[in-house]
């Protein structure tokens, strides 16, 4: 998976996507491809199908027409491998309120098998040092979001698919996450993101407008 | 004194098993009822002191 110098390779490509929901065509003939070092921001009004497209690209939504390729192979035929190489975070952060920050992060990153030390460091990174053993019930919404985001520090997946990751974050959190995205992209990773937040100054940033025309 | 020897006291006139089972179970439950708040208090004090130290540590940097 290490990209050769100069020669960028396409990680994920989609062509001729067609999807409708409740008798409404969300997108038709949509094509998209992402190579390493790129960040694609899906934009568009509410209900334009950003989340639907994101889940479709993540392989969670199979109710569509068109082609999805992971390294030029149909995605569904190599789904377990794909799943190991892309990190998906939805609106819902899968954080259990009665468990502590550490226990939640341990579950979220179970597939990466991090060491105890890595978990603590990741929590420290999201400014949750000292809250490791605090039940998430007692954390604010933003702090709970940070628990979920701490897995970005641990994951080794080259492709990140993030749905509105900036929700509930404060100013420090937003700039931290922007830094993380930038670092990931410049290390040869790729990101597909939906966000109403204006991302700026990230090399390789592309915006994809959805919806508007029905 | 109703009993003339310790053995007689333990035997409780053939009902020893029932009497001592009752008293034993009661002792276990009572011990639990008493120990729980004491242990809880100890844990509470420890956790909160920890939180206080943490807040003090984080306060100057924030």
């Amino acid at each position: 998976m290490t990209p050769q110098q100069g020669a960028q390779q396409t990680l994920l490509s989609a062509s001729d996507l067609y999807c409708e929901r409740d008798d409404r065509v969300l997108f038709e003939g949509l094509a998209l491809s992402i190579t390493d070092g790129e960040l694609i921001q899906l934009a568009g009004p509410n209900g334009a199908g950003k989340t639907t497209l994101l889940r479709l690209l993540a392989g969670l939504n199979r109710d569509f027409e068109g082609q999805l390729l992971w390294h030029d192979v149909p995605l569904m035929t190599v789904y377990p491998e794909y799943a190991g190489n892309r990190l998906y975070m939805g609106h819902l952060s899968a954080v259990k309120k009665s468990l502590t920050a550490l226990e939640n992060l341990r579950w979220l990153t179970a597939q990466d098998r991090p060491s105890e030390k890595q978990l603590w460091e990741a929590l420290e990174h999201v400014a949750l040092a000292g809250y490791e053993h605090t039940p998430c019930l007692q954390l604010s919404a933003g702090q709970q979001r940070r628990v979920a985001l701490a897995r970005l520090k641990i994951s080794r997946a080259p492709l990140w698919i993030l749905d509105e990751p900036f929700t509930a974050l404060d100013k420090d959190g937003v700039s931290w996450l922007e830094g993380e995205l930038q670092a990931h992209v410049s290390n040869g990773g790729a990101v597909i993101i939906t966000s109403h937040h204006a991302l700026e100054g990230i090399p390789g940033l592309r915006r994809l407008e959805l919806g508007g025309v029905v | 004194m109703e009993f003339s020897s310790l053995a007689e006291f333990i035997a409780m006139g053939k009902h020893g098993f029932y009497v001592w089972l009752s008293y034993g179970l009661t002792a276990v439950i009572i011990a639990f009822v008493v120990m729980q708040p004491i242990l809880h208090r100890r844990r509470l004090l420890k956790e909160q002191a920890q939180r206080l130290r943490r807040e003090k540590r984080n306060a100057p940097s924030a």
Partner: protein
Amino acid sequence: MSLVRATVRRDLLLAARNPGEWANPLMFFLMVAALFPMAVDPNPEFLAKIAGGVIWVAALLATLLSLDSLYRADVEDGSLEQWLASGESLYAMSLGKALVHWCISGLPLTLMSPLLGVMLHLPEEAYFALFISLAVGTPVLSLLGAVGAALTASLRSGGLLLALLILPLYVPVLIFAASAVYHAGIGMAYNGQVAMLGAMLALALALTPFAAGAALKLNLSR
């Protein structure tokens, strides 16, 4: 498999943090069984005859009640999404969930059943049959129920619907288990019934996780 293992661990931890999760069905079990002597007849000879059946009906209802929440929280907080995103086998995941459910519902029910046996004057010869039938039968209840729970996880009023879906599927287990306890009580052999329960368990272990896994995918909101 690492996420499956982590989920099993997390669910056990959750049960330890929220004792209501396993204690409430247990209390329900006790209460339902206590209703029968009050509604019918507290006469020991009479109770001895119906004890096995009453305990089994109570165990069945208690299991059913605790099933409702099996997948609901995971659907609501996004854990389900993460399972699907992980690419791990949903068969293993639903098997793991069902086994955890048994550990926090069926197992405590089995362990508590002798107490109910005493209260309902179960014949002494029937205790072992009661215990073994619960130990083999309640995992089947958990496994079958997990399918129903997966089907109804994202429905708001899933509880009653779950009961309607699952109760007919519980009938065979109830018939063989209650008959095992009854036959043991009147001093007859009951290994045939227990063998039937064992066969049902083997079948449920092999098949229901597929159905539950498939049903789980339906809960992914769009």
